[in-house]
């Protein structure tokens, strides 16, 4: 569930937790004040209200402080995003094809498969192609998501950091069997990956020349 299998897990989780802490603080503050006031100034106890029209210093305070805080949040979000768009030069490119309602993957050497195999600790750049409608390439364990749009080729990269197999989901609604549009990404140690892709290529060649 909270699998951490890529280089993006830590920055995304940290930004999330940072913002959640600030949000919880403000929620508790507001709710706490609300409850305190409701009890303290209940009409049974406090028969006479006082008119206070407002306070400019207070308004400035609660405008400026949240503004600063959201700017900090924005900074973390933006830098985190920036690191997700610029793929390293030595990334291994894989073409991803989405169609109603399945995924397929094509490697640089022409090998195709239904499951995405990637080597451990090697940056992978996926090029996303749609054959029909909008889809979205979503790997929760990697904290990445990118829409797959016809007439456009979006890209996304990641660095797998843990061996295992993880779910690939479609996150953009695409019709009848949208929710069944699963696939798997399998992270293998590099030698095993090389062996797999060599075997697969040999297999394909055998099948092609009967």
């Amino acid at each position, binding site marked *: 569930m909270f699998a951490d299998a890529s280089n993006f897990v830590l920055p995304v989780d940290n930004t999330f937790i940072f913002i959640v802490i600030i949000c919880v603080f403000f929620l508790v503050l507001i709710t706490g004040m609300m409850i305190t006031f*409701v009890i303290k100034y209940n009409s049974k106890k406090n028969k006479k209200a006082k008119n206070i029209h407002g306070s400019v210093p207070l308004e400035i305070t609660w405008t400026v402080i949240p503004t600063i805080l959201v700017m900090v949040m924005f900074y*973390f979000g933006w830098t985190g995003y920036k690191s997700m768009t610029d793929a390293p030069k030595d990334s291994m490119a894989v073409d991803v094809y989405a169609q109603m309602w399945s995924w397929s993957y094509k490697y640089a050497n022409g090998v195709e498969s239904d499951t995405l195999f990637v080597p451990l600790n090697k940056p992978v750049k996926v090029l996303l192609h749609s054959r029909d409608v909008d889809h979205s390439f979503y790997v929760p364990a990697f904290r990445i998501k990118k829409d797959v*749009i016809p007439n456009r080729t979006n890209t996304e990269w990641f660095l797998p950091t843990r061996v295992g197999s993880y779910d690939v989901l479609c996150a953009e609604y695409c019709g009848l069997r*949208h*929710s069944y549009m699963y696939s798997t990404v399998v992270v293998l140690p590099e030698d095993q990956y090389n062996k797999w892709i060599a075997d697969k290529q040999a297999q394909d060649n055998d099948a092609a020349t009967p």
Partner: protein
Amino acid sequence: MASETLTLHNNGHEVSYLDYQGKHKGLLGWLLSTDHKRIGILYMIGVLSFFAVGVTLGFLIRLELLTPQGTIVGPQAYNEFFTVHGIIMIFIVVIPVIPAVFGNFFLPIMLGAKDVAFPRINLLTWYLYIIGGVLILLSLVLPGGAADTGWTFYVPYSVRTGTNMIFTLTAVFIIGFSSILTGLNFLTTIHRMRAPGMDWFKMPLFAWSLYATSWIQVIVTPIVGITLLMVIVERVFHVGIFDPTLGGDPLLFQHMFWMYSHPAVYIIIVPAMGVISEIIPVFSQRTIFGYKFIAYSSLGIAVFGSLVWAHHMFATGMSDTAEFVFSLLTFLVAIPSAIKVFNWTATLYKGSIKLEAPMLYALAFIFLFSIGGLTGIIQGALNVDLYLTDTYFIVGHIHYVVFGGTGFGLFAALHYWLPKMFGRMYNKKVAKVAFWIVFIGFNVLYFPFFILGWMGMPRRSYHYLPQFQLYHVIATVGSWILVLGLLIMMVNLLVSLIKGKKITENNIWGGETLEWKVSTPPTVENFEEIPEVFDGPYEYKQNEYASMEEEVK
């Protein structure tokens, strides 16, 4: 607005708008009435009926998600359910509800006018609205099936699907037109028909919120109108606009769609904020804290809210510049909402608080809307949004804002103004019990969505992985509690209209705005003579005045 000329007692020759017999009698007297109060009631009947349909569909969706595989229906039916649930709730319920029902009924009264600027256009909007709603209901039963695209109608799926898209799109177009006309009606009313002495900053904050909302309605609704019209044209005439097989760019559709549909969120929430700004001072029996800041923040939301649409598209692969700009603006739009929340909370300070049903709903609004708003901030951060968008997190967020916000604003408004509108009081004890059931059911239903989203559960999914089931079961149980609460609340209100205790006094809650100076229920002409206004809308003259600086000492 305690003003001297406002001793407007009825001398018996003025009849209530409910009993008035004009040119047409009986049902026709309602269906052809141009009285803003009767049109408000017509809208209320329409909106609440569609709300019942929407709730039923939502209930069925939750029932279906009890188990990971099919529970009661197949995937096609499920897809239609969530689509129609979304369309009804967004376009037919929450966008019109507060302006069309309470705005129509109370805006002219609050401004000291006898009607809105264009009464006949006002009636026309209701008919357009009903035609649109009926078209959507028709699309459910006609062969072909209801729309199954999600309420966002994303191209190219909406061009390809074989369902009754044309019905649905036409319906939304017509309702949009109705919304524009309501908006221009309110704008003109506010500009031209305020009572003598009521300058802009003596207007009730509800009127301010409607003013900001109406601008958004007039300016951005045409854009979605033309966009959906183009989808219809594409389907019928195969004109190349968005369809990628004809060279179009599906992302342009998303831009054009959200250019309206994001500001629509503010069309939805700002009037509810206006309602809360009315209720909080009345049940605290003191002047509102920071009147001008609340008024300006409504305008601020309207301006900034129109400029943040593409934050729905962070994962679509826009240019980095666009991601930067829209994320920045998204964070900024949080500020005016925060200002409102702080000012409401400060209004409770040194008040004399009565926890009646409307106040309970208003306080719950602040709590739930805060959760909705803060979870929105979480998604404003780009890298986090790439993970959370299109998951249950966003579904939780939208329900906290739209249902926890506007829904609770609506319930608050119903409990606050219904006695005024019909002259009968509901059972206050039952109302409070219903509130707690609704409040608990709401949180049990929607809070697990945040957890599901963080776990990576995509939205609009008929089928899901087994690890998500626990939270789906909790949410479904929550939906049962919520529906129970809603039933108790609605039955209580409906019964009160027939059997409730009659109210004769004008000012049941101790409000200072003009609607509490007219008789209960209001007369046909609202005012015998147009009142003159001298003070701001929340001046409780019997109170001592103080400034914050003194208080802190």
